[in-house]
């Protein structure tokens, strides 16, 4: 399952995106090596979630390039994009579980649609995925019957259903208490390392960044302000970086 290919799974060049005349992303350049966990930081509205939505092809950029495993995705048609998406996973901020389906059916949904597994194999895989996030006893529960932290876990299990090589996490610990947030952060790191996944995490949670990220990128005014390790951020002399870290911690 571990990815050994050394090509860059994500390469972003000169990426820009505006909404209603406001430039949210302004010429972002970023490359992410295979197996790395990268945290995207920045104030609310600086384009972290927008960048993730562009990376998964939910929105189109105004200009610039996004290459996933060497393939340019900004100009792809829906069919080809859907094939690329099978290599990608996405954990939404509010988990975005299908509220009319049980947790088991939520996790089974992509397996049913995108694989040729038999019903018995699917059931076994769903059980294993939910067990990996500690929800093996909640297979038949509806999303409305579980807590926010459990929703995030179930969303994570669904995001991992197709064994993606790259997973995007949009504020995975937002709205959770510090202990649950730390558990989710640890879970993401453990699963990323076990599966050799490349992870991009949009977050405000500095604890997760410090403990679990290989690299942190701070966005400001649509641009990359600093790109390095957590220590690089901490030692930065830029007044905005210092102010951001002080306020976040």
């Amino acid at each position, binding site marked *: 399952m571990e990815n050994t290919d050394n090509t860059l799974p994500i390469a972003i060049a000169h990426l820009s995106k505006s909404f209603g005349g406001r430039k949210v992303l302004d010429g972002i350049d970023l490359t992410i090596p295979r197996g790395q966990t990268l945290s995207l930081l920045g104030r609310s509205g600086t384009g972290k979630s927008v960048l993730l939505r562009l990376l998964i092809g939910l929105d189109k950029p105004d200009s610039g390039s996004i290459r996933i495993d060497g393939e340019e995705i900004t100009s792809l048609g829906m069919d080809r994009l859907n094939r690329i998406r*099978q290599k990608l996973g*996405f954990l939404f901020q509010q988990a*975005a579980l299908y*509220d009319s389906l049980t947790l088991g059916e939520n996790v089974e949904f*992509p397996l049913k649609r*995108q694989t040729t597994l038999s019903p018995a194999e699917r059931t076994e895989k769903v059980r294993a995925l939910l067990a990996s996030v500690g929800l093996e006893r909640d297979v038949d529960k509806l999303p409305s019957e579980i807590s926010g932290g459990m929703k995030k876990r179930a969303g994570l299990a669904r995001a991992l259903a197709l064994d993606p090589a790259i997973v995007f996490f949009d504020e995975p610990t937002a709205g959770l208490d510090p202990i649950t947030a730390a558990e989710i952060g640890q879970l993401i790191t453990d699963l990323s390392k076990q599966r050799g996944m490349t992870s991009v995490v949009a977050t405000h949670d500095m604890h997760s960044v410090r403990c679990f990220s290989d690299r942190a990128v701070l966005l400001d005014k649509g641009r990359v302000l600093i790109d390095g390790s957590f220590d690089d951020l901490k030692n930065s002399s830029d007044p905005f970086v210092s102010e951001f870290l002080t306020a976040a911690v």
Partner: protein
Amino acid sequence: MRLALSLFITLAATVSAVPVEAERRGGAGLLAVQSLVLSVFEWFGQFGIFCQRVLKGTFSAPFEGREFLRQLDNIGSQSLPLVAVAGAAIGVVLGLQTRESLTRFGATSMLPSVIIYSLMKEMGPIVTGLIVSGRVGAGIGAELGSMKVTEQIDAMAVSGVNPYKYLASTRILACLVALPLLTLVADAAGVLMGWLSSTLVKPISLGLFLNMGLNGVSFGDFLPATLKTSIFGLIIGAVSSYQGMSSRGGTEGVGRSATSAVVISSLFLIVADVFLVRLILLFFK
């Protein structure tokens, strides 16, 4: 389709150029009209793009047979009691009202024909369309709107599933198939209750009532009027799905989507009926 979209974009661009002139003249009323016209063009343009995506999804494999059947059950069989009651009520009203009118002209023997003819030609189809538009249109608008604002539709797209195909296309096709079948139920319930209301006033057997009523009715009267409800289904499914999938603004937005799905689809349905009746008269007279 592309030509129509280009036309809308050109018209929208032309209309959007008006505010500068309007502002120069200080015409607030003109600005409001311009804004309204612009939003109508924008709606039709976006709706056209939506229909194009749904159409493409509908005719590309894999086909969503199971989801289509689930929607057919949801839209068809669950609307059945409501449609049957509405049809029955129309039958009773027609029976009572028409008897009084026909008695004035000494033509009570025409009563079965008038009830059956009115139900099959217009009352059954339009009442079924409006009832389904209210029940199903609001349901689709609210369900898809809720999925949209909670990012469930995005989650589906991320899973590699085309939401235009899985969510919209299946619902539109289910509406298209369900409407004529529901219309038959409304017609049957209406005729039965029309007979019952007639026989309570002046006893007549069901066999004789049907015989007298169907005597002057041909397939040309019955079939096009019933099949035109497929177009009603198409309108209800497409408009409601579009309103739901373009929902924004949280729970308030979901409410707006549900309401607008019913209002717009009912309005389009009535307008379409005018044209369809004219077409049917043209080809089946």
